[in-house]
């Protein structure tokens, strides 16, 4: 079965962990994830600049590793990301910002990617509010 998974909540919200555990369970049960979509505060997960205390888990790093390991399509809403200061090299250049803080395996793209994923998935699941 094909799953589209959207996350709306940021790294500080337990929903970010629930969504990751769910995504892991989807793959380990032999299903596929057609697309992950990060909207609203979840775009902060794509930032590479967060630093967690050494004895605490780093949810952003775990997501990044999970996406890279399974070569998943991980789309970050570009409008939500720009508002919150999550920019890749191209956007940092376009808007004359001094640094970029996201890159592969994340992709910045539009809401249409979520709409498209909702249409093609057998199951669409959203985490966070």
């Amino acid at each position, binding site marked *: 079965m094909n799953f589209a998974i959207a996350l709306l909540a940021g790294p500080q919200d337990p929903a970010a962990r629930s969504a990751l555990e769910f995504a892991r369970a989807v793959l380990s049960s032999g299903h596929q994830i057609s697309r992950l979509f990060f909207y609203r505060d979840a775009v902060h997960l794509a930032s590479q600049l967060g630093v967690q205390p050494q004895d605490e888990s780093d949810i952003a790093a775990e997501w990044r590793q999970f996406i890279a390991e399974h070569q998943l399509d991980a789309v970050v809403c570009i409008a939500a990301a720009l508002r919150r200061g999550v920019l890749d090299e191209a956007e940092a250049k376009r808007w004359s910002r001094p640094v970029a803080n996201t890159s592969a395996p994340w992709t910045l793209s539009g809401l249409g990617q979520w709409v498209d994923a909702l249409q093609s998935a057998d199951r*669409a699941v959203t985490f966070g509010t």
Partner: protein
Amino acid sequence: MKSLLIISRHPPARQSAREALDVALAAAAFGVPCGILFMDDGVFQLMKGQDATQIKQKSLAANLQALPLFGVEDVLVCQHSLGERGLQANQCMLDAQVVNNAEIATLLEHYDQIVTL
């Protein structure tokens, strides 16, 4: 095409309100049959006579008015949420259709997918 119901639950001053409308407009622009249901504090988005400029925000009115133009079929508002806040249907923009709990249950059956924002 799978139909999509968006449930918008946040008050108008929140970024979340605008982001829920963006999803509805994006889906409609892609030709997805979709509806939007305002409930909980989301019903405040529909109140007439708001002045967002006083809190240095852009009004949601233009986005709301775009819903029917983009072909968002159902613009619905939860009767219970209005009542809880002492509001009446005639205070709502867009002639939003008032739905009770039983009708909401029917809606959840009717739409293929539900997204709560």
